[in-house]
């Protein structure tokens, strides 16, 4: 039992810099054999960078990685796996058309003479692993036919083909139902009992407190402390996570809200969101805050006609609205700046001007032809207003920076003078400078009389731009805060679902 006193994995003083960013700044982290160690931090705190260092995908600039007391160098994911460090990714990386057995041994299929696959051995071994995981399905099943939870089991089984010392789970429950979660937790506890060290990354406080032995918190790429789960509480963890006192001061006059522009009553789409009711007034920014998968984007899609709700009512400017397509939404004056600008917002090969005027070229047509002068006038106006940096309107959208691309998408919808503007994750993947410009812009838009909905997973962002914050957890609105009354603790608690009963 002496070996068990040596950490299964130890990271010391890990530093990793990218051009202009110090992503990890001297991080220490260790996992004992048979321990579940939770890693916690806001988006961008450095969790994924740390895991990529651990998996051999990034090389640290400074610091040391030790496995079972021996310093190691891991330059590729294959080496990391050989050292017994296995990552179970948030996104599954399985080949859906192949069987579970083939996926488990992908790249290492047992062979017979002439390179033929030894199916008997393959299925025997795979079934043995699945049995160890108490899986109810056989290894011959095609992965595409398995539920997401069972697919995750296959991923875990793959990790167990090597003699894993450390298994890293990155947000494993993001796509699982409650029942499936219970199964996953059983497996984690089973691994733990076998002496495997577990790193558990999650945003969800309730899970962390159920599972973990210790909690390490990262913030802004730096190590902020390690707490023993048994003797700490949610407040303490939250404080470590947020740490700084955010600058929430806004140098603007008290906002002046007008009439209710959008009213949503009991909107339900089973499995995604339920009984969602809220209003947005003219001149107001309503922030939707919650974890990924809390149903916020899905609500936006329903409002924009991309998703058909089962029941509920949407009223725009007091009138009941039937929104069956984006076309209908646009006609009602609802605009959506989508979550993923490259995939959903921009036609990358197209030039900036054409991208900006895309939804309204019909309206800009006189006779058979599009009025290019009018298009250019719109482009010039919004380039100046949003300070879009591009050498010319002819530039294809692909070559612009993320911030400028986002401004093109925002400009596209602003130029339609919408009645309701929905912005989903407005600053994802955008540099700090452009970020604050976009925040400023959202405030100005509200001041100019737009009704704005901002969906964000970043707390500083919702706190900075919103007049009201709606906190969501698992498809439900947990609580609504006025910006004057909100505290960071209460917000974190509302979206983690820990005080669900207390609030409801």
């Amino acid at each position: 039992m002496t070996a068990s006193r040596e950490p299964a994995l130890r990271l010391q003083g890990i530093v990793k810099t990218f051009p202009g960013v110090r992503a990890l700044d001297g991080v220490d982290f260790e996992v004992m054999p048979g321990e579940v160690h939770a890693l916690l931090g806001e988006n961008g705190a450095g969790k994924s960078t740390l895991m990529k260092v651990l998996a051999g995908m990034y090389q640290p600039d400074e610091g040391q990685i030790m496995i079972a007391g021996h310093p190691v160098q891991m330059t590729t994911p294959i080496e990391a796996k050989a050292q017994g460090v296995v990552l179970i990714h948030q996104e599954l990386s399985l080949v859906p058309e192949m069987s579970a057995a083939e996926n488990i041994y992908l790249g290492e299929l047992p062979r017979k003479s002439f390179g033929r696959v030894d199916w008997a051995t393959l299925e025997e071994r795979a079934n043995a692993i699945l049995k160890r995981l108490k899986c109810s399905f056989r290894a011959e099943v095609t992965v595409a036919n398995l539920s997401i939870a069972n697919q995750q089991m296959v991923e875990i089984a793959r990790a167990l083909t090597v003699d894993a010392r450390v298994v890293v789970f990155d947000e494993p429950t993001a796509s699982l139902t409650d029942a499936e979660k219970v199964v996953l937790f059983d497996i984690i506890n089973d691994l733990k009992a076998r002496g495997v060290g577990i790193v558990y990354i999650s945003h969800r406080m309730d899970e962390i407190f159920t599972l973990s032995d210790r909690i390490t918190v990262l913030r802004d790429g730096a190590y902020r402390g390690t707490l023993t789960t048994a003797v700490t509480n949610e407040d303490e963890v939250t404080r470590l996570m947020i740490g700084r006192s955010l600058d929430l001061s806004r140098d603007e006059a008290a906002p002046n809200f007008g009439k209710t522009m959008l009213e949503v009553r009991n909107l339900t789409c089973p499995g995604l969101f339920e009984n969602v009711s809220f209003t947005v007034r003219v001149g107001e920014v309503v922030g939707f805050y919650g974890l990924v998968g809390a149903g916020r984007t899905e609500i936006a899609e329903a409002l924009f006609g991309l998703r058909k709700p089962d029941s509920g009512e949407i009223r725009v400017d007091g009138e009941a609205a039937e929104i069956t397509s984006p076309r209908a939404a646009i006609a009602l004056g609802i605009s959506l700046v989508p979550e993923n600008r490259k995939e959903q917002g921009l036609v990358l090969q197209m030039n900036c001007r054409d991208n900006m005027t895309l939804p309204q070229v019909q309206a800009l047509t006189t006779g058979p032809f599009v009025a290019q002068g009018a298009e250019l006038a719109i482009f010039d106006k919004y380039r100046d207003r949003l300070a879009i940096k591009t050498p010319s309107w002819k530039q294809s959208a692909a070559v612009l920076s993320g911030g400028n691309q986002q401004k093109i998408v925002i400009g596209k919808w602003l130029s339609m003078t919408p009645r309701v503007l929905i912005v989903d994750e407005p600053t994802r993947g955008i540099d700090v400078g452009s970020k604050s410009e976009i925040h400023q812009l959202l405030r100005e838009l509200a001041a100019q009389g737009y009704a704005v909905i901002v969906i964000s997973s970043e707390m500083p962002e919702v706190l900075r731009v919103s007049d009201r914050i709606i906190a969501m957890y698992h498809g439900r609105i947990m609580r609504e805060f006025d910006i004057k009354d909100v505290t960071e603790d209460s917000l974190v608690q509302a979206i983690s679902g820990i005080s669900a009963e207390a609030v409801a």
Partner: protein
Amino acid sequence: MAYFYQNPVLRWLLRNPIWGFVLIVFIFFSLSSEHFFAARNLQNILVQTSTIGLIALGMTLVMINGNIDLSVGATLALAAAFAVDVQSWAMFATWGNWQILPAVCLALLVGIFMGAINGFIVWKTGVDAFIVTLGAMLGIRGLVFVYTGEQSFYAMNFAYSDFSALSFGPLPVLAVIFLLCVLIVHWLLSRTVHGRNTYAVGGNREAAVNAGIRVGPHMMINFMIIGFLAALSGVLLSTQMGAATPNLGRDYELWVITAVVLGGTKLTGGKGDIIGTLGGVLAIGILRNGMNLMQVPAFYVYVILGSILIAVLFLDKRFNTSTDGGLRL
């Protein structure tokens, strides 16, 4: 290299490498064959080019949409069969030369209809256009054989077969029709809402839907346009021959796609234009004509065209990834 980028003509050629190639082969054949650079031969090239050229205009729209249409050769044959056969129907026997009118109209409608079916299936089922039009290619060719009974139809009305001999000044009427269509489709693509939507749908379908574009009907219209152009091409080809054979238009889809791709249109959609496509069809037309004049056996033309196709796409990848920010598929 700096000079290369500053000179507007050279910069234009770098973006449209196929026109550089057209220029080179044109000069090459002018120098190496005494018959090439003659008014009569240049008229010939235009007439020969018009057949695949007309279809290539439609193919450009369909391919920028991110689709493809393999059924054009068969549609061409079906339309030609209708155009030649209908004018000899008994009910039009007393119409004199006017009997040509319902025949041609019906032929063009058949083309539009076939395109509409292709487009409708692609829209409603979501099956890949490659598969849908591959099926249509086989099916329509089958219909041609059923309709013609494996026989050729001959035009009895000489006004029909004399049509292709007409000319406006120095330009043969077929060349005029082709160039007119080039202008119209160029305007359609570069100046109208439909054209703008064509790029948007092919470039990023999801963004197009989010911008309120009705993608399905839009794609169907482009399939109808290519159906119309394939039928028109079939009618014009049958006037040249005074007949319609059941094997008319075999392999044309391959020539057309080659021309369009040579002209810089991307198979993945979102990119391309009519100027490039015109260069592509001219390149093929000049090469076939010139090599024919130099009495190079026809099969070498295939070898050379195949090599050029790959070379041009390679150059395009080299140059346009470095100047345009690395976004190419």
